[in-house]
């Protein structure tokens, strides 16, 4: 299962900006809840995190030394 952005539903006000900006179809509205679906197409562009006015979406990075992690 690919790593996917995470969404904090308590911060999400369903403005839909993340859905609009996502070009790989990873973010959809299901029963009025913004949902991150698993897709290998997600290129981790982090635009969803950038446009969210409430910082509800996180695209976190693991930081590793080359040769470790």
């Amino acid at each position: 299962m690919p790593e996917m952005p995470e969404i904090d539903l308590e911060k999400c006000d369903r403005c839909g900006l993340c859905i609009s900006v996502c070009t790989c179809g990873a973010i959809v509205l299901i029963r009025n809840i913004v949902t991150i679906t698993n897709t290998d197409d997600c290129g981790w562009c982090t635009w969803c995190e950038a446009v969210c006015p409430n910082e509800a979406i996180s695209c976190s990075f693991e930081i590793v030394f080359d040769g470790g992690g």
Partner: protein
Amino acid sequence: MAIQREFLESIPYFSGLDADELDSIGSHVFEKTVERGEIIQLEGNPAEALFFVASGAVKVFKTSAEGKEQILSIVRPGESFNDIPVFDGGLTPASTQAMTPVVLYGIARDKLHTILREHPQVALNTTRVLADRTRQLVSLVEDLSFRHVIGRVARILLEHASDGKTPRPRLTQQEMAALAGSVREVVARSLKALEAEGAITLERHRIRITDKKALEAMVEMSV
């Protein structure tokens, strides 16, 4: 016009106005729809209007001579762009592009002058908006001009990197910005710069430090 009045009420420029004033201003507003990816304005062109984003998101960016893009800000619903060139009559200092399908409300420059003359409260609100915008830009210029931000980002990467034995917490670009005392856009640019210098590689959800000594040197240079 009912929808427009509700939208206009939420705009800082039109704060404190009554319904008649908002309707009067609304008569000068035009609507423009933009497709995802469409360039709304290119840097260096005359500003046709003051634009407010009604829906969608717009990125404001500059492009260097080498073609590198620096995002200055993302404009979301309720926010505006072209504020500076439309008031000083100069050319647009940055380009704008739709990140999603966008609906804009615009007020042409000559109509804006009419509004300022007829509604003193708007003129007062405008000074407040422009003062706030100036403060934001000064802060951004400081961040972009000095290498200490890249040095801070380099230090954050070194301090949070895992050696493979002990897991470390992951960081978002927003969290790195908070740690660096900067903004997300500058951190994103710093990461790209560090990658261009060969100190790190940016992979899907992973930052790999490929040249620890180079990162340490950047930390030293920024002190």
